[in-house]
């Protein structure tokens, strides 16, 4: 079993080896990275990421890559302080015995140069230290102030090469930044890089904002605003800064989410206490009501091909998950266990639906197959809610609120083993992961 299978969470052999080690490594290399899956703890891959040569942003870039890989839970960046091999030119082979001695299975080295035009050029190499094979060699050119994105792109390339899964580091997260106590909570729409860098606040906190969601196809988010005069659903173009509403409805509007192709938004409209799901075509601005049940119907989320919608309804007595065709036909319940299921979100890969489950006085983030099978609860706490998928469909971010009322962002992989606070440490809720940036 390789690292890819670790990510997909398939049960299997007790002893695991990483895919890249198999490229040409002798047996001894594999022995270093055995993982006993039954112990419920993955031993992360030791990796050396020394400061890139050439000065300038070299050390910063290595640090951002190191932080990304470490937070994924699959890699363990090692200290490279005492290593004799002082890497310089990336075209010169590293002295592998020096790196083997650190215990690192992989080495990422790189070189930063600044051109006469001020452009940043970053070359990097990924090595298997034991087989002494180069696994990857790429070059990025960018404006100097864009160095963090270069580091994220390198992180994505390394992650993909070593795990077989797409990375998710060159992404952003929209969320709700919170301040104040339970009785005077202030909520601002905010956006940051996935590693918590460059946070910026879009609304001023004078009204409540909730549930931002990214379009999978454009730099656009939709979110809900709540004022004493009523609720609105907004579309915000992050490139132009332009905000518009999806229009006026007689009652509450909430729970917006884009269709995968970005041409529609599904949301709930409440009338006389009854919430139903509507889908609006963003070009024609025509909205169509697609549920008519007198129960609560909310939290719609499209399948990646756009043909189906998973949603939350209490039509069976308490909150459960249902899947229907995108026109509202063919409704069937998919959640079965005891407890209340809410906030379903279809994975961008289509293989899982993530949700929040309440049972026994606790909240869980969980995943199940789109047919309701294979349900697994990944977290347990006083209040976990609102999962959002990384674009690779293998990691989730969600809100975790303590009993004292402080909410923070956390992430968990779909095996449930790699659970940790997100890099952003401020009070926050309702995270929404962007697609990979271009």
């Amino acid at each position, binding site marked *: 079993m390789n690292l890819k299978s670790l990510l997909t969470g398939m049960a299997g052999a007790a002893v695991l080896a990483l895919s890249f080690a198999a490229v040409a490594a002798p047996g001894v290399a594999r022995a270093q990275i055995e993982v006993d899956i039954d112990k419920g703890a993955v031993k992360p891959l030791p990796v050396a990421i020394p400061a890139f040569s050439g000065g300038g942003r070299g050390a910063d870039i290595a640090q951002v890559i190191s932080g990304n890989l470490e937070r994924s839970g699959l890699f363990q960046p090692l200290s490279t302080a005492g290593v004799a091999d002082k890497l310089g030119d990336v075209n010169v082979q590293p002295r592998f015995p020096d790196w083997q001695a650190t215990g690192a299975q992989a080495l990422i080295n790189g070189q930063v140069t600044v051109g006469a035009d001020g452009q940043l050029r970053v070359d990097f190499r990924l090595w298997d230290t034991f087989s002494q094979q180069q696994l990857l060699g790429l070059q990025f050119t960018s404006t100097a102030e864009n160095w963090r994105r270069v580091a994220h792109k390198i992180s994505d390339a390394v992650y993909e090469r070593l795990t077989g899964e797409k990375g998710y580091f060159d992404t952003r997260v929209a969320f709700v930044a919170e301040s104040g106590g339970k*009785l005077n909570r202030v909520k601002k729409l905010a956006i940051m890089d996935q590693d918590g860098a460059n946070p910026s606040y879009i609304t001023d906190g004078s009204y409540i904002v909730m549930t931002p969601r990214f379009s999978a196809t454009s730099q656009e988010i939709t979110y809900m605003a709540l004022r*004493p005069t009523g609720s609105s659903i907004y579309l915000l173009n992050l490139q132009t800064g332009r905000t518009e509403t999806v229009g006026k409805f007689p009652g509450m509007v*909430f729970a917006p989410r884009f269709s995968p192709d970005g041409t529609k938004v599904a949301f*709930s409209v409440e009338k006389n206490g009854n*919430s139903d799901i509507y889908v609006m075509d963003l070009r024609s601005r025509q909205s169509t009501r697609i549920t008519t049940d007198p129960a*609560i119907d909310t939290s719609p989320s499209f399948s990646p091909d756009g043909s189906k919608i998973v949603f939350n309804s*209490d039509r069976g007595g308490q909150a459960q998950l249902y899947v229907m065709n995108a026109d509202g036909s063919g409704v069937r319940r998919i959640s079965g266990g005891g407890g209340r299921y809410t906030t379903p979100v279809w994975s961008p890969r289509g293989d899982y639906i993530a949700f929040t489950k*309440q049972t026994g006085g606790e909240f869980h983030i969980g995943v199940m197959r789109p047919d309701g099978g294979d349900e697994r609860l990944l977290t347990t706490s006083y209040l976990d*809610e609102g999962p959002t998928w990384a674009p690779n469909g293998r990691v989730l971010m969600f809100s975790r*609120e303590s009993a004292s009322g402080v909410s923070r962002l956390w992430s968990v992989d779909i095996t449930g083993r790699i659970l940790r606070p997100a890099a952003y440490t401020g009070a926050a809720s309702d995270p929404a992961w962007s697609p990979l940036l271009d």
Partner: protein
Amino acid sequence: MSFDTKRVARLALIGVAAASLAACASRPKPTGPVAPTPPAPTQEAPPPYTPPPAQPVDQGPVPGSVQDFVVNIGERIYFDTDSYDIRADAQPTLAAQAQWLNRYPAVKVRIEGNADERGTREYNLALGARRANAIRVFLTGQGVSASRIETISYGKERPIDPGTGEEAWAKNRNGRTAITDGAR
């Protein structure tokens, strides 16, 4: 529980209302479109009563005022978990609200539905909307014109008790009839 809460709030508000009457010697201003959220009711003792200076004044709120409604009628009723049924103990309050509103036909209200934190955000918005609507239906059933009533759900965004546990959650599962216009 709702009865105790109301009584404590009433005591506290009598003190405040009387003091403000004495101070400005005129009737209280109607609230603007945004009615202030009252402080969270607690089981603690109300602030000490401050007697009005010198000249004796009528201690009750002006009939038809926001204070009159809040203190003498009660603006909130409470719900069971995940329910929007009007409980038996809430019916006298709502009947009194309807009677009061029928007596002061210029008054307009916004009914705010609230949920406790033991649910997820979007579901609780829907649940709060159901609660607000249940109150609206009750009031219109008692003769209050629907044109005087608007509703909104705050979901779990506007708790009145920051505590953890059933006692706090029970208070946070409420519907508030907030006067927005037309009070004396």
